[in-house]
């Protein structure tokens, strides 16, 4: 009898796939909510003329207080509502005010827009133009059943309902954010700074990490301690080390400047994080300092997995130390070096905290990521910030394409 290989998807396989998706579901949902949704939002916002202040939807507001004194039955006063539209640009339509008149007060004369049902006050106020203001007075007299003291009016807060369209959700789109972004010479400047920071930061961290790894690629007493020590910059919180650098390099009271002046290296203290182009070089140096441990760790791990016999054989053949490094170690390390380069390149490109804490993006150190923050929060132009974020995301996609093209073959990701 001919045995036929089963084709198609069997029930077992289907069950397995169902289980797999089930297991992945929590991750997928959370990632969709926190990563994919914000990404879509960024694209949406980048086409909208939105400022930080526009985030609060316009509202009709009421501020109530009592004019006059009420202490005993028979006293007259007025409840005053100050009504306004919180926005100066957008109208609020269909405004309705609801409030409760405190017990014991008799309403004397009612505005034509208002109705009173027992103690429930309802005023249909219509539309509020942008910047609209009004005072609504309701005269009251304390009735015979009034018991002092009068409860605070705000015990029952006036409730305002009204509808306004928020800029965030309407269907108006504009290319203004991108136009202003690319128009100014600033963008290309920022891009140049970003590329400098990324390229030199990445290469620097790799090279320094390679040296550190070469140094510790032998066993001796204290090797473990040194390895732990060399990882400190990466493990410590960025805010702690960044502020330490700022204090250490301070032009007025920094130890490094004091040292340089004392050793006659410089005459006057240097403002490391405040001068162009030194500030950019310094933040790049900081980046190298903070991330060399990572490349160090990877390269060391790779080095220790290289077969020692190869070196013994080379030693027998009389290869000198530099020859051994160049002809044996480097080819073995090329794979991990290129992977590290690509990944670190992407991550340095994305880096925000370090520069933000060191210079705040001043003195010619504004990278694309810092620019997002600057535009959105310092200039309060959320739309412009989102446009920069979209540009970053586009760059990232290009890098990722590269990454998967070259690296996945290399490391089998």
């Amino acid at each position, binding site marked *: 009898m001919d045995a036929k290989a089963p084709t198609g998807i069997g029930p077992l396989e289907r069950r397995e*796939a169902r*289980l*797999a*998706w089930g*297991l*992945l579901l*929590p991750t997928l949902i*959370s*990632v969709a909510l*926190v990563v994919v*949704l*914000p*990404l879509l*939002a*960024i694209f949406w916002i980048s086409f909208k003329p939105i400022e930080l202040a526009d*985030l609060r939807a316009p509202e009709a507001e009421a501020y109530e207080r009592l004019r006059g004194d009420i202490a005993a039955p028979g006293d007259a006063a007025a409840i005053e509502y100050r009504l306004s539209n919180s926005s100066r640009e957008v109208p609020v339509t269909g405004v309705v005010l609801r409030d409760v008149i405190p017990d014991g007060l008799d309403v004397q004369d009612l505005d034509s827009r208002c109705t009173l049902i027992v103690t429930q006050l309802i005023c249909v106020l219509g539309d509020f133009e942008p910047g609209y203001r009004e005072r609504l007075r309701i005269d009251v007299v304390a009735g015979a059943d009034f018991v002092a003291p009068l409860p605070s009016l705000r015990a029952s807060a006036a409730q305002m309902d009204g509808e306004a369209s928020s800029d965030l959700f309407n269907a108006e789109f504009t290319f203004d954010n991108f136009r202003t972004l690319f128009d100014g010479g600033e963008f290309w400047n920022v891009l140049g700074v970003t590329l400098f920071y990324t390229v030199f930061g990445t290469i620097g961290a790799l090279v320094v990490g390679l*040296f*550190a790894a070469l140094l510790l690629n032998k066993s001796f007493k204290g090797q473990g301690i*040194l*390895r*732990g*020590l*060399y*990882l*400190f*910059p*990466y*493990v410590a*919180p*960025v*805010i*702690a*080390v960044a502020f*330490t650098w700022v*204090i*250490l390099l301070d032009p007025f*009271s920094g*130890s490094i400047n004091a040292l340089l002046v*004392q050793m006659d290296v410089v005459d006057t203290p240097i403002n490391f994080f405040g001068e162009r182009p030194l500030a950019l070089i310094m933040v790049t140096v900081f980046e190298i300092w903070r991330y060399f441990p*990572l490349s160090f*760790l990877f390269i060391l*791990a790779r080095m220790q997995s290289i077969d020692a016999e190869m070196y013994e054989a080379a030693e027998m053949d009389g290869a*000198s*130390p530099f020859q051994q490094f160049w002809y044996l170690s480097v080819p073995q390390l090329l794979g991990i070096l290129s992977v*590290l380069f690509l*990944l*670190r390149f*992407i991550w340095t490109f*994305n*880096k*925000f*905290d370090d520069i*933000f804490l060191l210079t705040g993006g001043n003195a010619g150190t504004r990278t694309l*990521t810092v620019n*997002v923050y600057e535009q*959105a929060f310092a200039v309060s132009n*959320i739309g412009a910030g*989102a446009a920069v974020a979209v540009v970053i*995301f586009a760059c990232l996609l290009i890098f990722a394409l590269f990454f998967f093209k070259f690296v996945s073959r290399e490391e089998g*990701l």
Partner: protein
Amino acid sequence: MSALRFGYILAPLLGALWSVVIAIVVAVVVSFATGAGLKPVIWSSLVVGAVLGIFALPQGGKWSRNRFVAHSLGAVLVVALVLFGWMPLPLVGAEGTGVAVLQIARLLYLIAAVWGLRVMLAELPWESLTRYEFEAAIIRFLTGFGYIFFTALVAIPFYVMVMTSLKSQQALLQNPLDFSLDWEKGWGLLRSYSELFGQFNFGSYLLTSAFVAVMTVLITLLFSVPGAYAVARLRFKGRAAMGRSILLIYMVPMIVLALPIYIAFSMLELRNSLTGILLIYPVTTIPVALYMLQGYFRGLPAEVEEAGLMDGLSRLAVIWKITLPLSLPAMASVSLYVFMIAWNEFLLAFMLLDDPSKFTLTRGIASLNSSEIPRQHLMAGSVIATVPIMLIFLGLERFMTKGLTAGSVKG
């Protein structure tokens, strides 16, 4: 290069370079330790180092005439220059530097220079060198230099961080180099710390940070373990794409996400709440945890799990009873790594938390960065944030380094 391949040329050359390195290092170390002003004199260090190099060559072997001449000349040169005052010693003091400190510094210099050169130049002949000997000596020099360079590079900022937190702002403004401690103050040295815990609420920040970090680890594991297992073991359509998209998500910069998250949280009134923070933090770590764990799960022998399946366990029971116990070390690495990310996270805490009662440590430190607060407080806060993560790291270094190498190309 071949012109350098003689012991009597290489030794003074390395000696001179090494001597300069040591002179600078001693000057910096002594300055930072005592506040005394010390200056390395470069040209004098070069001369003295060259002579020391000649003397440090192993003494065995035949004595040739030129070797004898070089030795005597070097000795005479140094003695004459120093005795007759034509040349300063490699280390001189600035104004007001005590003689005792200066002499101790010079002694340190001499010991370090000679000892280093003895190690570097060991077994080096006086005459011509083979390429191997030549390069080995240079590498020994570079190694010595590397240890000093890297240790200083890493240690100085942390040393300054700790010492600044123990000193007063006035003392440091007067002499920014003086990190010596006034032991008579006793517990008073820790004043910044007691003020931070007493007046600035750092105790509560510490607890908040610990809570947030631990919760982040737990939630991350809860989500990523099943996901990682699915990607590693189960066959389904889109498995490869899934692996890639995880990595891609892992590359999206936080600042791009932070902006819409800030907007959404403002609208949903989730800003200023730890719930909001705990909604975001785990999601930033789930992709990397998933990626690390699936790599580990793939390395586990599938046979054990299949045996479990044969014995009638369900998939979930297999994960719970077989896979998880086997992967405890990997879980420890992932947990530590995630803990570190959550503990050190700054950007989101900075943007989303404004209410001081809900600050995490990093957010708390950011609030200390003002001109009205003395900077020893800022540094004390930095120490408070750094010490716990360092202790955890040193205590569990094995897991930590594993975790870092397994998935952390992120930074």
